[in-house]
């Protein structure tokens, strides 16, 4: 099983992420942990919701609001970064955690690289599928780039002037 980072540790990735085409062809597997695109989730929500081993992946342009009623039923939400420079996912993550109170696994997928990990973690991601051509051990150290932050974040909402 491929490796990934979850809660600051390297673990094996037991989730399978499927795209719309492969689901159109083969359907959603009967069992096993599966991450499906938002459109699939919306189409088959009633059937999938009961399973408890289905996660949803949001692409840029698909706002978390679409999951507003589902957050408590979802064990995992993935946010896709087709290119690391597209920063919409940062706001989506923050919204999921603070506006919609999502407490499950929030996973960054796609062009996920060491140098963005610290920021991704601060806005609420706790899991990272680091791009597979990169050294995951090295990527892990990206979570420790800074000990000082000025703003509040998902882990501690207090900005520095309210912490003392």
């Amino acid at each position, binding site marked *: 099983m491929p490796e990934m980072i979850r809660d600051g540790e390297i673990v094996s990735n037991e989730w399978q992420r499927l795209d719309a085409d492969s689901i159109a062809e083969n359907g959603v597997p009967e069992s096993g942990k599966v991450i499906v695109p938002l459109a699939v989730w919306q189409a088959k929500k009633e059937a999938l919701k009961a399973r408890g081993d289905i996660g949803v992946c949001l692409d*840029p342009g698909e*706002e978390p609001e679409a999951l507003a009623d589902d957050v408590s039923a979802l064990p995992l939400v993935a946010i896709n970064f087709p290119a*690391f*420079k*597209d*920063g*919409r996912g*940062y*706001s*989506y993550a*923050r919204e999921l955690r*603070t*506006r919609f109170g999502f407490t499950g696994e929030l996973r960054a997928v796609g062009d996920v*690289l060491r*140098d*963005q990990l*610290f*920021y*991704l973690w*601060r*806005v609420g991601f706790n899991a990272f599928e680091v791009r597979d051509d990169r*050294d995951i051990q090295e990527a892990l150290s990206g979570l420790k*780039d*800074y*000990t*000082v*932050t*000025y*703003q*509040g*974040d998902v882990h501690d*909402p*207090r*900005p*520095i*002037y*309210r912490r003392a």
Partner: protein
Amino acid sequence: MYVYQDHDQTLLEERVAQFRDQTRRYLAGSLSEDEFLALRLQNGLYIQRYAPMLRIAVPYGLLASKQLRTLAHVARTWDKGYAHVSTRQNIQLNWPAVEDVPDILAELAAVQMHAIQTSGNCIRNVTTDEFAGVNPDEIEDPRPWCEIIRQWSTFNPEFAYLPRKFKIAVNAVPDADPALIGVHDIGVQVIRDGNGDTAFQVWAGGGLGRTPMTGQVIGECVAWPDLLAYLEAILRVYNKYGNRDNKYKARIKILVKALGAEKFRELTEREFAELQGGPMTLTDAEVTRMRGYFTDLDYQPAGDGSALRQALDSDKAFSRWFHTNTRAHKHDGYRAVVLSLKKTGRAPGDISDEELEAVADLADRYSFGELRNTHQQNMVLADVRDEDLFALWQALDGLGFATPNFKLMTDMIACPGGDFCALANAKSLPIAEAIQRRFDDMDFLHDLGELDINISGCMNACGHHHIGHIGILGVDKKGREYYQITVGGRGDKVSKVGSKIGPSFEADEVPDVIAKLLDVYLESRLENEAFINTVERVGVEPFKERVYA
């Protein structure tokens, strides 16, 4: 000025370590060109036409003398011995080597300087009036708010990968716009609310560049505790909905225009409703702390002014400089002094290592050890006693910084242009110099009065050509350098974009074109009427006619 605490210093040192590691991985080939590009830009490092360029942040333009000395040392050790003041009050080095940048940053960090977010698609250095804190017209010192915004924006995790760059300016002067908030992505106007408390009118969607426009008021009256929550709300709307497909349509101005101010406000208010009153709310203690950093200068009571009066009466050159290059101060007995970096033959805004050191000495001697960079690419010693003005003038004259041309025609803004910048269509520095040489008679320049000529080497408008009373833009015509002229822009009160007068010109024609524009002005002006006011009264047409006759 703001005094770094231990945690601020730690943050800078962590940044140096991070960037050192990124540079190492890039040079070792484990970071791709494109990945490193985004990282180095967020650290102000461009790869330019001939060499890299490193843009060093000068928060709201304010520098301490020890920082000037370090800049001198850095320019001497790792560059060609000079630095450049940019139109966003930063300092640029034009010749550092990529592999030296981590060492340069370490040297800068030792004096609380850095290059964080001076480029890239993130929130850039916050700017303000270069006379902030001493300007008699301001309703309060805007710099504590600038520092509050600086800290909020520094490594803000949510807004590091915006659709495009993002610039914020703060202005606290009621009837003028010295910080150019009208042409910033966000402009913050300090106001008083109904109870006399500090509040903010927040503008969004202004900008120069390819599609110049002035911003719109989004927040009419934001209470001071809510400032950061309101800014965060705007940024979140922009981060989610700004255009990411076409970089020429990616600035917030395009989004505000497309949605309309009404709709943009509605989206902002929705985000704001969730943030207001939350943990981002500013506290009295924090604002008091920040204000404390900007009010501790030890001003002396005014003298009787006789020495100054005498010098003014007896020395015509000093008197001319005094009236042109010094400004009124909040405190009796003090003046703010503009150091002109626009002597003919000097590239606008350039300053050598030795000059940086000399200026640092003058700041220590005459102005509480502080100095400001201005967006017009000059420098300011903001707190000079009347009694010291004559001696300071003599010292500045010796250094070539006493050209009495502040706000006059030869006090031009020019971007580095084709001599340095990889994006340029045309050179800008030789145009500036040709104009300075053609119009070098001080009596003539003083008779002309205030006139802004702004030159950019391309559409990116780093030289703010749109808001020059006369704007000059380098364009490419079949591989040759041409210059397009605009008239009637202004960046002094409410910013306004100038109008093109017609087809563009070759470089050697430009001084003649300027001469014709000036002729029309001199023939048409009313008594004491400035160039820009004449243009607004008679319109652009007579200028066009003369130039293309």
